[in-house]
């Protein structure tokens, strides 16, 4: 599905990261593999440090902390917020929506649209799309997009496939109407036939968590996990990404009549370095235009990685300069989405630590 938007812009991006840092080297003994082999993977995949929450911290805690920071710094006014979107796969509860909990705790006005969206790695682009849809309304002038996940709590400590890459975090993005007519191009794709490729099998209504679902089992590759944990078929995910994402990017740029050389940065979802380098090779862009340093420094927090790759790599530069950015997210669903837009002189673009 190709999408096109006019008169909209992003005006600020904030990443909120838990202070608690876990080192890959400290967890090697948890995995059922030789130390040498695991250390080689560290270099190739970019496994190093990741930020994870302390027990008890929730998605709403991370979001509220970030929102209060923006209020205190006068970077955002409560009454200006007309819509609040939360993209997460780890809500505080099944019900009510976590966006409503956040609205209540922040004491935001009642004349506001609040919604949760259950999306993972493509959730930043999908959330932006939703914000742009809402901004078509006369009475909606400012949308806050919250992306947050705490999936470290759902990964087995003996799962070398997933554990080393999964981090926690949140991002807050402000989207507003813009008098300048800069066209934003987007694309969203879905393939629910691949729903089991990335899944937490138990814990929902179909298969509630029980002592049986919590039973740890070893897979053929030596990873140990239960049905309550995140399960990823890594080979299938890798092949899906390599098959679909380059095609999507080429189509997006064709629609926008834009060459790869014109784009300043390809800010893509950050599962691991190897996958990103292969994507850069396949799409035909130099590695320096597609930063791949989020997973090694902070871990992969689903839809938080795209805003984080922007705040970490561009940061203050985005307060005074403008860059043409191509974004892409891909993962659970299966879902993949991309966007081409200009980021221009943001009001804020930074990373803070949750305390």
């Amino acid at each position: 599905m190709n999408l096109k938007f006019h008169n909209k812009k992003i005006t600020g991006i904030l990443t909120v990261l838990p202070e608690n840092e876990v080192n890959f080297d400290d967890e090697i003994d948890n995995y059922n593999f030789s130390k040498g082999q695991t250390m080689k993977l560290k270099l190739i995949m970019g496994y190093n440090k990741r930020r994870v929450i302390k027990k008890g911290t929730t998605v709403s805690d991370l979001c509220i902390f970030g929102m209060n920071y923006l209020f205190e710094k006068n970077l955002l006014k409560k009454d200006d917020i007309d819509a609040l979107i939360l993209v997460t796969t780890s809500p505080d509860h099944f019900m009510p929506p976590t966006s409503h909990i956040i609205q209540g705790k922040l004491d935001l006005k009642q004349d506001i649209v609040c919604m949760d969206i259950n999306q993972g790695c493509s959730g930043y682009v999908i959330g932006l799309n939703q914000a742009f849809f809402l901004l078509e309304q006369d009475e909606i002038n400012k949308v806050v997009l919250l992306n947050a996940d705490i999936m470290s709590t759902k990964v087995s400590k003996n799962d070398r496939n997933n554990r080393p890459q999964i981090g926690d975090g949140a991002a807050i993005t402000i989207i507003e109407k813009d008098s300048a007519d800069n066209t934003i191009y987007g694309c969203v794709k879905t393939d629910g036939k691949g729903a089991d490729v990335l899944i937490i099998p138990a814990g929902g209504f179909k298969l509630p968590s029980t002592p049986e679902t919590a039973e740890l089992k070893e897979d053929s590759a030596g990873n140990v996990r239960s049905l309550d944990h995140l399960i990823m078929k890594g080979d299938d995910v890798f092949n899906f990404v390599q098959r679909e994402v380059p095609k999507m990017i080429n189509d997006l740029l064709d629609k926008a009549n834009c060459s790869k050389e014109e784009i300043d940065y390809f800010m893509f979802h950050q599962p691991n370095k190897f996958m990103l380098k292969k994507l850069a090779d396949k799409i035909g862009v130099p590695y320096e235009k597609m930063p791949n340093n989020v997973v090694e420094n902070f871990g992969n927090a689903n839809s938080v990685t795209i805003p984080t790759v922007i705040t970490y790599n561009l940061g203050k530069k985005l307060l005074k300069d403008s860059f043409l950015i191509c974004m892409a997210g891909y993962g659970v669903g299966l879902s993949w989405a991309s966007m081409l837009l200009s980021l221009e002189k943001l009001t804020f673009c930074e990373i803070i630590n949750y305390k």
Partner: protein
Amino acid sequence: MKKKINAFLSEIRPELDFSESSNFIEEGMLDSFDIVQLVVSLDEEFGISIDGLDILPENFSSVESISQLLIKNGVLK
């Protein structure tokens, strides 16, 4: 080329004798992370980037299949 492939295989899994195997994947000698390591070694050694779509278990089941993959990616015999 085959000499290099054998050297990389021995480096990745020194405890195994690949010459005795008819299918590295079916016999559980290489897992997906071993394949990733092998791809990185081959890319660096031959100055190529093996297409992500070709990183499939069947292309790493024998020295012969790996050789064919390299030839497909422009490496001369």
